């Protein structure tokens, strides 16, 4: 029997009901996918495709008034959507960590870096302030910060964007999460710094065994970092496949559009878009093992 995935998102719908309307507005519709243990899964789509809200729902931190309206998010056998808020805080503190696109605005500008890190340790284990400070310095060293003792005494505004993102990753690792959600962690960073951060994320998985959900709009980042890819468009998943399969044999027209908008994609991206044809009302279909495509019929089936 195959091992259960760490995270199982099952028919998740996110939305809200505007006060003048009877029907709720959905920004994420009927989304299902899994993240296996120690797996790096990429979630890709354009701005507004619902990828960030899907990821935030795992922490039950969708942007108000948006909230999960239907479906289940099962982490390690527990449905997070039905958990009392008290228990949810333990999930956020101990099992799932998230890092965001703009690391500077996720750090407290009035607190020294070392104090922010030390607080993670003092709030999750019985440990003295002095020992927590030492742990903080160790963590800064682990995420590749030169002069960790000096940086620990600095404030966020004194650090560069790349350094702040390293600190964020350090904060996230401090709780030894089973799942790390990284929302556009390198957008806005220079490419050489991006390469450093992506390497750090992969190193993190190797060292801690954490699973990673990586949200990005950059297919290059996906190709180099992830094992499987979930493609979202307009609040729905349009395609799920392994990285190799997605780039070799993209099926959904929207995936093809994304690939074509990216310079340097392999030749397969230039195949005609008539591979699949829209078939409303049908969910994801498994067209090849592990390769799911939304509500679409193979063109050759129609031709028959």
């Amino acid at each position, binding site marked *: 029997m195959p091992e259960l995935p760490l995270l199982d998102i099952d028919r998740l719908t996110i939305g809200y009901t505007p006060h003048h309307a009877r029907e709720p507005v959905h920004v994420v519709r009927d989304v299902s996918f899994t993240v296996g243990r120690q797996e790096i899964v990429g979630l890709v789509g354009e701005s507004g495709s619902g990828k960030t809200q899907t990821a935030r729902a795992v922490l039950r931190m969708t942007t108000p008034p948006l909230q999960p309206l239907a479906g289940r998010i099962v982490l390690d056998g527990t449905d997070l959507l039905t958990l009392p808020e008290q228990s949810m805080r333990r999930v956020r503190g101990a099992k799932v960590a998230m890092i965001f696109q703009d690391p500077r605005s996720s750090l407290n500008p009035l607190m020294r870096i070392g104090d922010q890190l030390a607080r993670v340790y003092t709030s999750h284990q019985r440990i003295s302030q002095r020992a927590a400070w030492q742990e903080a310095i160790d963590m800064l060293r682990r995420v590749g910060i030169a002069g960790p003792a000096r940086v620990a005494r600095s404030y966020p505004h004194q650090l560069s964007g790349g350094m702040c993102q390293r600190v964020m990753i350090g904060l996230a690792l401090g709780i030894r999460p089973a799942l790390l959600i990284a929302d556009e962690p390198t957008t806005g960073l*220079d490419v*050489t710094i991006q390469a450093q951060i992506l390497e750090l994320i992969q190193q993190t998985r190797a060292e801690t065994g954490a699973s990673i959900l990586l949200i990005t709009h950059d297919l290059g980042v996906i190709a180099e970092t992830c094992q499987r890819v979930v493609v979202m468009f307009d609040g729905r998943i349009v395609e799920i496949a392994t990285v190799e399969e997605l*780039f070799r044999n993209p099926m959904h027209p929207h995936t093809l559009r*994304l690939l074509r*908008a990216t310079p340097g994609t392999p030749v397969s991206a230039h195949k005609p878009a008539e591979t699949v044809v829209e078939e409303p009302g049908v969910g994801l279909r498994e067209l090849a093992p592990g390769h799911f495509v939304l509500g679409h019929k193979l063109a050759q089936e129609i031709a028959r």
Partner: protein
Amino acid sequence: MNAAPLLRVDQVAKVYPVPGGRLFAVDGVSFDIWPGEAVALVGESGSGKSTIGRCITHLEPVTSGRIDFMGHETTRMGEGAFRPLRRDVQIVFQDPKLSLNPRLKVRQTLAEPLLLHRVVQPRQLDAVLFDLLEMVSLDRRLLDRRPRELSGGQQQRVAIARAIATRPKLVVLDEPTASVDMSVRQQIIDLLARLKAELHMSYLFITHDLSTARSLCSRTIVLYLGRVVEIGHTVEIFVRPKHPYTRALVSSIPIPDPRTRKERLILPGETPSPMHRVVGCPLVGRCPYQMERCGQDPLPFVFLDPTAAADHAVACILYGPDTQRAPWEAVATPA
């Protein structure tokens, strides 16, 4: 064949006084742009690439060095003397939301340079505006819209139309695709490529996004910490980078093809502060190939095998008349 470059930038430096010292934004940069040529100026944040663009377009005086445009030295000109040249050198900024006047309709935005430089008679204005919009693939009905009523891609097309309205010889494009969505980015690049061919303009394409530079520009200049570290044909820069920094930069670009597994050079640390001027190579302290002499003397440009790739030059001590191969290139590679 034109014997003179359209633009010559010679040993240009730009130093800003800042609290606690001086900031060396651009430190002795030289290059030429020839008529009809598109040149990419690539570098990371703080490398001085935008400052160079602003010096060329006379938006910012240089601290030392000289810039010659169409045979005139512009670095000593006042604004009045430069004004006749302004119609020939235009600039497109990164964010059209900020560079377009929000209170002006598209019509007014585009008419301004045309009337200011007396390119058209007022009664011919409409016909010229229609032409201009058609060139950037915008509907003429957009003439009476204001920037906020346009999408990001449409706004950037208006900014491009404004820049080419006076039929300039040189357009400085300062990260023109950085603020638009992925799918629109390629359309803007395609538009720029078409306009360049139609109007025989030269471009200085300033970007941190190397893959867009690759599709538009024949030559590329790599900047690091206000210095040119390598200059050459774009293909050479991408395929056979010579300077360790160029190699790190090129190998950092994520390749959207999972079958490619390439060796990556990740530089430790970050770009140092431009407040401390370095004597030798700006990469000292981060470079895996560093030697003792690197930090001591200013580095001359070494021209690489002129038969293979003309004008490929690199400011690195690894190269000399006898050593033209990068240390990471396999020895077995036939010449």
